[in-house]
């Protein structure tokens, strides 16, 4: 299954670094000139890449062990005393294990804590469902006042990390484990919180995607064009607050939507898009996501194929959405 035609993350685009690597490098670089930034780790810094910051700034780096509840509370206390707290762990553990602490110690007082969930989605592969954060976006979106970001590639993740650190208030940033195709260059990677990036224009439908699904959406749009369907592609890197203007324009101007995300069906990007479009300008919407199930161990590309996160599935959904529009 390792061939170029097997789907997965092997697209025509050049492979860039993993988004967790991009986050780690950006944090390391920005931390240099920002003494107010502190990092609290739950003994996974070599996975989340906060170790690069930690090695440069051991006086501002605290490993509290495998204890996510305490991790979040310590970060909240640091933030309450004026620090910009950055915490990173596996998306599944930081959101699920420490949810009440995120709710009570961070969201309720609105503290300046930056929560980074790494190893998100099924593209982590072999470690299996226990390690796969597939409900993290839903949980993070349910925390009042949180900004929720799901960047697509290396350069946009660096820009997202900068935007996250400049934002006052709690943020959830989702990053992934595998190397991912490059979509942006250093100069084209703009990341404005709440402002979707239109990567391709089209008049027949709009594919709204984030994370690893953006490159697959672009592949799908290319394939659709050869079949006479012109697809707009939006990189909806901020799930909350969602870009209502871009969604209204997409619904009005293209009349049908597909939402693609590496997340369960409930509470993620699809839910947010549907909520918004149903209010502003209802049009047919189809979804490509992980439905309502746990995944399993396997090679990342094979899992993406098995669970339907492919350009081909996005293409099928696009045709269904366009057909519904005509019906």
């Amino acid at each position, binding site marked *: 299954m390792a061939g170029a035609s097997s789907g997965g993350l092997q697209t025509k685009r050049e492979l860039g670094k993993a988004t967790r690597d991009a986050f780690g490098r950006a944090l390391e670089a920005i931390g240099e000139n920002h003494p107010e930034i*502190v990092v609290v780790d739950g003994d996974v810094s070599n996975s989340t890449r906060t170790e690069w910051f930690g090695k440069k700034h051991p*006086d*501002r780096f*605290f490993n*509290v*062990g495998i*204890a996510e*509840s*305490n991790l*979040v*509370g*310590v*970060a*909240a*206390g*640091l*933030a*309450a*005393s*004026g*620090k910009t*707290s950055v915490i990173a762990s596996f998306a599944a553990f930081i959101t699920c294990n420490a949810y*009440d*602490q995120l*709710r*009570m*110690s961070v969201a*309720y*007082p*609105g503290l300046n804590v930056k929560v980074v969930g790494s190893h998100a989605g099924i593209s982590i592969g072999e470690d299996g469902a226990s390690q796969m954060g597939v409900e993290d976006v839903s949980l993070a979106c349910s925390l009042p006042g949180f900004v929720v970001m799901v960047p697509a590639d290396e350069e946009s993740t660096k820009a997202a990390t900068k935007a996250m650190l400049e934002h006052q208030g709690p943020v959830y940033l989702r990053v992934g484990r595998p190397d991912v195709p490059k979509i942006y260059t250093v100069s084209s990677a703009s990341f404005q919180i709440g402002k979707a990036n239109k990567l391709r224009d089209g008049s027949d439908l709009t594919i709204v995607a984030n994370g690893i699904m953006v490159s697959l959406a672009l592949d799908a749009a290319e394939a659709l064009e050869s079949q006479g369907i012109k697809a707009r592609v939006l990189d909806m890197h901020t799930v909350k607050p969602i870009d209502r203007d871009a969604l209204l324009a997409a619904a009005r101007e293209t009349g049908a939507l597909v939402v693609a995300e590496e997340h369960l069906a409930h509470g993620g990007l699809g839910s947010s898009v549907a909520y918004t479009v149903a209010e502003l300008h209802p049009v047919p919407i189809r979804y490509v996501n992980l439905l309502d199930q746990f995944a399993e161990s396997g090679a990342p590309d094979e899992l993406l194929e098995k669970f339907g996160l492919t350009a081909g599935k996005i293409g099928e959904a696009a045709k269904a959405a366009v057909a519904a529009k005509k019906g």
Partner: protein
Amino acid sequence: MANNLDALLARAKSIREDIVRMTTEAGSGHPSSSLSATEVVTALYFGGFLRHDSKNPHWPDRDRFILSKGHAAPVLYAALAQSGYFPHDEIMTLRKTGSPVEGHPNMKRLPGVEASTGSLGQGLSIGIGHALAARVDRKDYHTYVMTGDGELDEGQNWEAAAAAAKFGLDNLTLIVDRNHFQQTGPAEEVLNMDPIDGKFTAFGWKTQVINGNDMREVLTALDRANAVKGMPTCIVSLTHKGQGILNLLRKLGDTNFHGKPLPLKYLDEALAEIAAGV
């Protein structure tokens, strides 16, 4: 010292009166959980231990007090109001719609509240964060955290206990308000955490066990905590839930009296017992 002690004992009575008055007015709340902690909170705010300025609640160099057992909010509100953080009569708006004097402490709405608490088990971790921030900033402020004894059922406390010891936080003092009761019964029966001091000692803390309703013992314990170097201190403060109105609670046949206010018809009797200092 004697004058100071007399003043503190009088202050504690005044705090207790506020606790009973505001919860009876509210018609709900946790007066008994607040009364047990009164000596410690009074000593912190009025005994010279907390360096604080009610006119500048976000003063970076202030000492911090985090009430992790957030349901005991009335004792905190009484201390903050009597310290001048907000007008004293606002305590009588406790739990009323629109009032920042909420059922559990909300740091966004009420000056002087250092942490929003009420989901038990989270305050010690927050306190560690403040203590680490002091270290990063090379500041000498001290952070005090108060938990309940039942609250120690929450596992997060033990994650935090290990971390505070790891970082050698001698700028952090935990007071466990050991009032021996939690919601449904005696703490030892619900989930026995004894020996509390032994557990914290094993985690690498300096520990003390005191009579937490004896102001002299409280003052001495807080002095000792300030002198400890290289490790955090845990003061196991043995108290009575409802201290100050125990005779009345016995008469009512409920010495736990968890999460309920005194009915108005008993208010005068409660205030008289507090004034007599039985």
